[in-house]
C-alpha cells in the first residue's frame, strides 16, 4: 500500500514538474541519478522491508544490503565519471554564479520555487564525497543488525545530502537540509547506544531550532528582493527562491558603491543565516549536540554525520550568506574569527579531558570545524580554498576516525580510553587504522588533513598576526590528545596485553574483513589526497578565485 502511495507521489511529482526550457535537451545527470534515485530506491526498500516480519527481515537483509551497495555505487560512478569527463565534457572552470550541469524545472509556481540543481567547484567535491562515503559506510558496517532498514536509511541519507549540495534554489536547499535530519534521527534512534533516545531528540531539535531561524532569514531575504517576471518568479508573490537570481541581484548591488539591502539589514540577515549554519557546523558554544549524537549514533551514522553532515554547515555559509553579504562578512570578520578560534581551542582542550574514545573524536570534529571558520575569516582565497579542502579532507578522515571507534566498540564492548591496552597485539589491523586515522586527523603532512591546516595558517597570519599562536597551540594539543589516547589503547599492556573486563575473558578479535576493506579505502584516499591534493584543490581554487572576483569584487579579471 505504501509502495502504491509512493508511486502516486512520484507520478504526481512528474506531472507537476514541467521543464523550464524545452530547448535544453541535455541529460540531467543530477536530479534523478544523484538525488532522486537514492531517495526513491531507499523509500521503496523501506516500504518493502517494513512489511516483513521480524524473522523474514533478517533473511531479506542480505539481498537488501547488496542492493543498497550497488545502488549507492551508481551515484559514485556517475559523480566520478563527471569529474573525469568520462560521461560528458564538464567544464569546471566556471565564473562566479555559473554552474555545471545546471537544470531547472518548475516546482511550486505560485511562490517561485523551482527544482533548480547544478554544481560548481564548491559543491561538486562535497557531492563526490557523499557518493563516495555512502558505499564505504555500507561496507564498513556490513554486519549491522536490522540491515533491512539500516542500509536503505544510509542510502536515503546520501541522497538527501547530495540534494543539499546540488540545490540552487533556497527552498529546495532548505527542504533537503531538513530532510537529512530524518534518516539520521532514525539511525541514532534505532541503532544507537544506551542514551539514544535523548541523543536522537537532542540532535533533531537542536539543529532544527537553528535552521528555523535560518529559514526566517531566508524568507525575509526572499521578500527583500525585487519583484520580477519570468518563469522563476512566483505567480502569487512575484519573488523567486532561485539562488542564481539572488546571487546576481546581490552581485549587481555589491559591485557598485551601494550595499545590497543596506548594511544594517545585511548584518542582521547574515547573523540569522549564520546561526543555522554555525549550529550545524557546529561551532562552540552551539556544539553540545554533537558529542551526544556521535557517542550514541551507530558507526555508520557517525561516519556520515561527521563526514558530510557537518560540512553542510560550512557549505551553506559559503553558498548563501557569505556570497550575498560580503559587507557583512567584513563586518563580522572578527566575530567569525573569534568563534573559529574558540571552537578550535575549546574543542581540542575538551578532547584532552575526555575518557570516552568516541567523545574525544567528536570533539576533535568541533575543533577541526573551527579551522573552516578561520579560513573564512581570513578573507584570502587561499583561506577559502583551505576551508573547502578542510571540508573535503575531514570528510574522508573523520569517517575513518569513527569507523575505528565503531570497530573498537564492536570488538571490545567498551568505549573507554584505557579499557583496552596493547591493542597492537590483539588487533594489529585495528591498531594500524587507528594510528593512521589519528595521525591523519592531527594533521600529519602527506595526509589529507595537513594541506588545509597549512593553508589556513598561511592565510591567517596577515590578518590576525600573533593570534596564530592559538591555532599553533591547538596543533600541539591535538597531537597530545591523540597520542595520549594511542598510548593507552594501542600501546602498553605488557606482553600479555590487557583485554578489557567487558570481554569476560574472551580473546579479543581483530576487525572483520568488511571493516578492513572500508577503512583501507578511506586510508588510501587520505593518502591520495594528501600527496595529490591538486586533484580536488584545483577545482576549489578556481572556485575561490571566481568567488573573490564575483563576491568581494577583488582581484579583477
Amino acid at each position, binding site marked *: 500500500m505504501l509502495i502504491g502511495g509512493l508511486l502516486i507521489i512520484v507520478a504526481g511529482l512528474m506531472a507537476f514538474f514541467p521543464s523550464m526550457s524545452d530547448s535544453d535537451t541535455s541529460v540531467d545527470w543530477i536530479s534523478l541519478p544523484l538525488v532522486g534515485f537514492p531517495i526513491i530506491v531507499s523509500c521503496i526498500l523501506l516500504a518493502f522491508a517494513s512489511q516483513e516480519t521480524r524473522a523474514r527481515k533478517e533473511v531479506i537483509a542480505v539481498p537488501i544490503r547488496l542492493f543498497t551497495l550497488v545502488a549507492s555505487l551508481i551515484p559514485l560512478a556517475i559523480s566520478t565519471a563527471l569529474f573525469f569527463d568520462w560521461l560528458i565534457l564538464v567544464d569546471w572552470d566556471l565564473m562566479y554564479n555559473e554552474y555545471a550541469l545546471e537544470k531547472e524545472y518548475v516546482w511550486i509556481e505560485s511562490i517561485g520555487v523551482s527544482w533548480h540543481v547544478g554544481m560548481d567547484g564548491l559543491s561538486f567535491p562535497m557531492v563526490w564525497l557523499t557518493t563516495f562515503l555512502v558505499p564505504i559506510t555500507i561496507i564498513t558496517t556490513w554486519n549491522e543488525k536490522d540491515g533491512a532498514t539500516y542500509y536503505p536509511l544510509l542510502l536515503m541519507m546520501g541522497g538527501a545530502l547530495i540534494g543539499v549540495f546540488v540545490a540552487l534554489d533556497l527552498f529546495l536547499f532548505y527542504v533537503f537540509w531538513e530532510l537529512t535530519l530524518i534518516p539520521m534521527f532514525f539511525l541514532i534512534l534505532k541503532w544507537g547506544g544506551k542514551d539514544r533516545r535523548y541523543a536522537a531528540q537532542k540532535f533533531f531539535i537542536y539543529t532544527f531550532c537553528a535552521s528555523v531561524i535560518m529559514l526566517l532569514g531566508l524568507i525575509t531575504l526572499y521578500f527583500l528582493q525585487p519583484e520580477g517576471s519570468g518563469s522563476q518568479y512566483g505567480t502569487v508573490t512575484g519573488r523567486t527562491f532561485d539562488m542564481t537570481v539572488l546571487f546576481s541581484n546581490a552581485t549587481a548591488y555589491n559591485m557598485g558603491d551601494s550595499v545590497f539591502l543596506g548594511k544594517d539589514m545585511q548584518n542582521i540577515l547574515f547573523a540569522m543565516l549564520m546561526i543555522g549554519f554555525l549550529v550545524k557546523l557546529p561551532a562552540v558554544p552551539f556544539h*553540545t549536540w554533537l558529542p551526544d549524537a556521535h557517542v550514541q549514533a551507530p558507526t555508520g551514522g557517525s561516519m556520515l554525520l561527521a563526514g558530510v553532515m557537518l560540512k553542510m554547515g560550512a557549505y551553506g555559509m559559503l553558498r548563501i550568506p557569505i556570497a550575498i553579504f560580503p559587507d557583512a562578512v567584513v563586518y563580522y570578520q572578527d566575530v567569525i574569527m573569534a568563534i573559529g578560534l574558540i571552537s578550535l581551542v575549546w574543542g581540542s582542550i575538551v578532547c584532552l579531558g*575526555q575518557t570516552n574514545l568516541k567523545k574525544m573524536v567528536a570533539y576533535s570534529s568541533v575543533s577541526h570545524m573551527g579551522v573552516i571558520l578561520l579560513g573564512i575569516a581570513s578573507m*584570502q582565497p587561499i583561506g577559502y580554498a583551505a576551508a573547502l579542502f578542510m571540508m573535503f579532507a575531514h570528510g574522508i578522515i573523520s569517517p575513518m576516525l569513527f569507523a575505528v571507534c565503531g570497530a573498537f566498540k564492536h570488538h571490545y564492548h567498551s568505549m573507554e580510553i584505557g579499557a583496552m591496552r596493547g591493542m597492537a*597485539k590483539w588487533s594489529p589491523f585495528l591498531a594500524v587504522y587507528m594510528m593512521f586515522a589519528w595521525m591523519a586527523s592531527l594533521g600529519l603532512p602527506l595526509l589529507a588533513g595537513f594541506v588545509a591546516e597549512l593553508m589556513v595558517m598561511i592565510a591567517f597570519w596577515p590578518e590576525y598576526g600573533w593570534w596564530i599562536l592559538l591555532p599553533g597551540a591547538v596543533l600541539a594539543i591535538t597531537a597530545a590528545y591523540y597520542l595520549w589516547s594511542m*598510548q593507552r589503547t*594501542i600501546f602498553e599492556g605488557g606482553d600479555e596485553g590487557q583485554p578489557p573486563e567487558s570481554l569476560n575473558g574472551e580473546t579479543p578479535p581483530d576487525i572483520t574483513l568488511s571493516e578492513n576493506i572500508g577503512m583501507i579505502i578511506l586510508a588510501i584516499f587520505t593518502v591520495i589526497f594528501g600527496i595529490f591534493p*591538486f586533484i580536488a*584543490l584545483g577545482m576549489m581554487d578556481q572556485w575561490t578565485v571566481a568567488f573573490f572576483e564575483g563576491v568581494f569584487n577583488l582581484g579583477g579579471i
Partner: protein
Amino acid sequence: MSGSEIIDYAVLIPLLPFLAFPVILFLGRLFNGTPTWVKNVKEGGIIALTVMGASLVLALLVIKEHMNKVGAADVFTWFESSWWNSETGAITTKVFGFGIYIDHLTVMLLFVAAFLCFLINIFSIGYMNTDPINDNRNHRFYAEFVLFCSGMLGMVLADSFLWLFIFWELMGLCSYLLIGFYYERPSAAYAAKKAFLTTRVGDVFLVIGLVMLWNLFEPYAGSQGALSYAVVFDPEKIAMVNPGDLQLALGMMFIGAVGKSAQFPLHVWLPDAMEGPTPVSALIHAATMVNAGLYIVARMFPFFMEAELGALSTLAIVIAVIGGITAVMAALIAFVQMDLKKVLAYSTMSQLAYIFTGLGSALWLANNGYDDLAAFAMGASLFHLFNHAMAKGMLFMASGSVIHEMHHAHHEVAHHGHDDDHHDDHHDDHFDAQSMENMGGLASRMPITATAMFVGSMSIIGIPLIGGFWSKEGIIASAWKVALKEPIFLLPAMLILIGAGMTGFYMSRMWFMTFAGKPKTEVAEHVHEQTPWIPIPLVILTFMTLSAVILAGMHAGHWLGDFESGHYSSFIDGIGYEMEHVFLNPDPFLMVLTYVAIGLSLVLGPSFAMALYGGSLDGDQKAKPWMQWAINLSARVNKNSKFDNTAWANSSLATSLHKRLHFDDVYDAAMLKIVVGFAKLSAIFDTKFIDGVIKTIESTSQEASRRVRSLTTGSARDYIMMTALGTLVIFILLWGVA
C-alpha cells in the same frame, strides 16, 4: 639541458624508500613467519637493503655531479592556490610545488643520510634479525625504517621550506613509530609519545615561522610558492624584506630546530628515545634525524648573508647561546649516566649543541659582514656535523653490538645456570644489558667493537688529527672570534670550551667503564662477537672517521661552508695548511685557544675518567695493541691517583643530574597536572555549563508546561471565568489602542 640529467632522477632517492614502505608492510603481513621470509628476505631487511643501496648509489651519482654546482629540478606541483594581495589588490595563483634543490649543504647531508641509512640497514639485519624478541615483527621495523630514510633524504633534497617541513614531519612520525616499536612496554609507549609531542611543540613554531616567512616573501614571489629556496634565497628579495620580521620568522623556525635536534629546553625526548629497538632506532634518532634541526638552521645562512648588516644578530646569538647551554648541560648529565645508550644520547645532544654554536657564530659573522670568517665557521660546523654523524653512528652501532652480545651472553649464562624453563622469555629477570655497571673488560672480548668505539670516542672528544678534532677546533675558534667582536658571545664560547673538557671526561668514562678493567658481571665474561652483519658497518665507519683527516686536508672546512671559496688544489698542501692553521695559527690568541681546548679535551677530561674508571683487563685477556696502551695508561692513572669523587657523587648536583636536572619531572607535572587538569575541568564545564544551558532550557520548559497545564483545572466554571477574563483583556487591549 638534456633530458637525462642525473638530477632528474634525484627524486627517486626519497621515492624508492617511500614506495618500499607499503611493500614491506604488506609483504610482511602476507608472509609473516614463513621460512623464506624470515631466512632469505630477513623479514624485509633485504628489500630495505636493496632499496637503500639503490638510493645510496643514486645519491652518490648526484653528489658526484653536483659537487661544485647548484642544481634544481621541478618534480611536481603539489597544489595551486590563490592569494589576494591587499596592497595591489591582485589575486595571483601560487604554486606549491615540490622539486629538488642541490647545493653544498644538500650534498653533504645527502651523503651522510644515504650512507648512514645504508649502513644502519646492514647493521639492522645483523642486529634485529638475531634477537628473538623481534621475531615476526621485523617487517614493521624495516617498513618504518625505510619510511624514515625517505623522510630524511627527502628533507635534504627538497627545494622549499614547505617540503622540508613535510619530510621533517614524516621523520617525526617514523621516530614515533620506532621508539614505540616495543609497543607493549609502557616505557616505550611513554617515550614515543614524549618524543613526538616534544618535537611537535617545536614543529608548531616551525610552522608559524614558515607561515611568517611565506607572508614576508609573498609580495615578491610572483606565482611561485613563497617558501621555495629559489624565492627566499634571492638576495634582492631578502633585501626587500623587513629584517625585524624576518628575524622573528627565522627565530620561530629555530624553535622547531631546537625541538628536532633536542636542544635545551626541548631536549627531554632524546634520552627516552633510546627505548626503541636497541639501538637501531636510537641510532636513527641520534645520528641522523637530529641533524634535521641543524640542517634547517644551516639553510638560514643566505638570509643572514643578504639581510641588512647586524639586523639578525640577535637570533644568531640566541642560537649560539642555546647551543652553549645545551652543550654543557648535556655533558653534565652524561657524567652520571650508567646506561650506555643514554651516555651516547647526551653526548649527541652536547655535540649538536656544538654545531649550533658554530652555526650561530657563522650566522653572526655572515650577518655582520665577515663573509670569509662566516664561510669558515659554517664549514667547520657542517664538517662537525659530518664527523659527528659518522662517529656517533659508529658509536651507536658499537654500543648496539655490545648490548646485543651482552644479551646473548646473558642468555647463555642464564641457560647454563638453570635449565631452560624460560625459552623465549628473557624479561622476567632484571638484568640490564645496557648498563655499564654490568660491563667492563670487553676490549679483548669484542675487538672490532672496542676499536670502533675507541675511534669514535676519540673523534667525539676531538683527539688531535682524528675526526671531530678538525671541526671542533674550527667551531671553538669561530665562536671565540665572534666573542672578540661581540661580548655576549663570550658566554657560548666559554661554555663550549668548558664543554670540550667535559666531553673528554664522559666519553672516556664510557669507554673505560665498558671496555677497560675487569668484567663486573659474570655475563660480561662470556661476551664475544658472534653476530654476522654487525661488524661490516663498524669497520666501514671506523675508516670513515679516521679519514676525516683526509677531508680536512681537502679543505672540507671551507668548501662545506661555501662552494665558491676554498677548492682544494693538492691534498698534501691542504693537510699542511690545515695543520699549520690549527697548531701554529698566526693569531696568537687562536693558537692559545687551540691548545687550551686540546688540553681540556685531551688531557683533563680523559685523565679524570681514567682516574675514576680506568683499570687493566683480566690477566689472560689482551686487547688489540692500539687500545692496549690506553687501558694500561688508565690502569696506571687509576692506581696512582687518590682522586675521590664520593663528595661529588653524593652532592645534590649529582642527584639532580641523575634526575636529568628535573626537566622531565617539571614537564610531566606541567602536562599532567596543569594541562590535563585544565582539560578535565574544561570537559566538565562543557557538559555541565554549556550543555547545561540547553538542559536547563529543557527542564525549565517542562516545568513551565506543568504550571501552564495546571491552569486547566478541569472545572468548567474556571473555563468560563477564563473566557470572561479573556473578554476583559480584549476590551482593555482594544480600548488601549482606540
